[in-house]
């Protein structure tokens, strides 16, 4: 058994150092230590850097007044911000570089080492501490009076519970808002941003419409939240190009299909539609969906197809939703199928 194997890992402390401590490097004098002329030059350089800092501050103040912010003139704002930024940067860097240059060239640079203090207190101090604790225990009766001690333990155990329970009130509950959108049976498909309803006859083959539900623009509250869930991409393809699942065959109208625009990966708007490949590309992480095949994922990190909005036309020829989406839109979450 070799010497090393006698010890369990980490237990051995007195191995000889494999590399000797070389100690401190011999001190080498700088040019500024050797020559007064160099020292004076360094002094001037430091002063020059501090002077640049002053100039920087003046440039920043000049930039503030020379380019007043005028409503509508973004170029003036940009120029003002540019010169103030340059000035403030010069001002700060001048002080910083000056201080470092000063320390490096003129302040003493001889290395010294100091040993650490011993962490252990003296035996006398330690004995005194034990004595104080024992005295306090005796006087308070902490060990002697069991009832007090145990009831205090109980109080301390129960005390944090309200703090934990309070977390239940942080923010409004999400409830089932993730599972529903504004779409209802008969809601008309309208153009984003005007809210003009769309007739099926207007959607020619190869067309893409960016769609919001009717009434979204009139919402007083949570308009953006509703838009973020209900945004739809409407496309008409040649009906013979569609590979329709018989169970969802009634969801499209004469080659017109509507899909949620919110990516099922992390919720970016998926709207890069290629007319001939029928690919829908998400610009964030390159998830690609095959629009002709119920938006099946053909590439990228998304794990489920974009939800399809079942559509039809009403008596006046406008496109309407048959119902809400039948599954949650946007990024998947753990209890989404419940």
């Amino acid at each position, binding site marked *: 058994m070799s010497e090393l194997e006698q010890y369990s890992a980490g237990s051995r402390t007195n191995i000889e150092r494999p590399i000797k401590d070389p100690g401190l490097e011999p001190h080498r004098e700088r040019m500024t230590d050797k020559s007064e002329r160099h020292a004076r030059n360094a002094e001037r350089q430091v002063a020059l850097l501090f002077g640049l800092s002053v100039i920087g501050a003046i440039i920043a103040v000049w930039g503030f007044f020379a380019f007043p912010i005028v409503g509508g003139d973004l170029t003036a*704002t*940009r120029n003002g911000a540019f010169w103030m930024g340059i000035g403030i940067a010069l001002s700060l860097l001048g002080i910083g570089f000056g201080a*470092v240059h000063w320390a490096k060239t003129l302040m003493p640079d001889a290395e010294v080492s100091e040993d650490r203090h011993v962490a252990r207190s003296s035996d006398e101090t330690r004995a005194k501490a034990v004595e104080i604790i024992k005295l306090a225990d005796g006087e308070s009766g902490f060990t002697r009076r069991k009832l007090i001690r145990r009831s205090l333990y109980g109080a301390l155990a129960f005390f944090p519970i309200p703090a934990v329970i309070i977390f239940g009130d942080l923010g409004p509950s999400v409830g089932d808002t993730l599972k529903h959108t504004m779409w209802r049976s008969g809601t008309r498909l309208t153009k984003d941003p005007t809210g003009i309803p769309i007739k099926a006859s207007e959607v020619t083959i190869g*067309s*893409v419409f960016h769609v919001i539900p009717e009434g979204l623009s009139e919402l007083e509250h949570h308009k953006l939240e509703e838009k973020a869930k209900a945004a739809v991409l409407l496309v008409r393809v040649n009906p013979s190009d569609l590979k329709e699942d018989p169970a969802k065959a009634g969801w499209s109208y004469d080659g017109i299909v509507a899909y949620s625009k919110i990516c099922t990966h992390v919720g970016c708007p998926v709207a890069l539609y290629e007319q*001939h*490949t029928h690919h829908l590309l998400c610009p964030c992480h390159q998830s690609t969906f095959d629009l002709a095949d119920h938006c099946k994922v053909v590439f990228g990190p998304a794990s489920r197809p974009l939800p399809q909005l079942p559509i039809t036309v009403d008596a006046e020829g406008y496109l309407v939703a048959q119902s809400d989406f039948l599954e949650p839109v946007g990024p998947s979450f753990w209890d989404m199928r419940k």
Partner: protein
Amino acid sequence: MEKNLNKKPMRRRPWALGVVIFLGLIASGGGYAFATQGVQTNVTGSAEQIEEGRKLFLANCATCHGSNGEGAIGGPSLIGVGAASVDFQVGTGRMPGQASGPQLYKKPVQFTEEQIAAMASYVASLAPGPAIPSEEILRTDGDPTHGGELFRINCAMCHNAVGAGGALTEGKFAPSLDGVTEKHIYEAMITGPQNMPVFNDANLTPEDKKDIITYLKYVEQNDSVGGLELGSIGPVAEGLFTWIFGLGFIIAITVWLGAKAN
């Protein structure tokens, strides 16, 4: 005097009505014919122009698009694509295509304006389709704010918020719109070239399209208020710039801080 009283004025004569009706018919019918002739010249061109276009088509396009524009191996049917499509594809040099691939590139234009107009007239004569837009709608005096909003909703996801272009799937890309003429932008919207979808007049009205073109020309002609644009392609270029110059500067300072003075 008596003689004059007995004589009926010319306009009361029975045949006068016939003359008035005849003149009226000539004026309205002739005017209508003249007016419609004007429109047709704009849309489809004269018979000679169409014939000229047919010859150019047979010599340059028929191999892929079929001798009657019905489509063949390698080229789609051109029936119903309209004059605007020809003007865009040939006028930007994308057609005649150089090589098959994920996408056809813009390249030096191969034909004169007259030749392009002749081919456009020929293709437009095959079946009705989108016409070349009028000068009126191509003036960039629309509303750039409204155009910018429409551009961000309908176009920016592929072409970038200021039209710098972007990548699509499998080697395809949305080209940069910088320097593209007003006419070609308009024609691209109404015809949907290659993998671009179509934006018909029900989706974006001609006024909307004019606003979008106004917006694009505005961003093309005005400096970016954010300073150095770095190609306007967003976080990749900006991040790289910060990595190289920002981090490089910090590393240089760190090395200087750690180095001993001479």
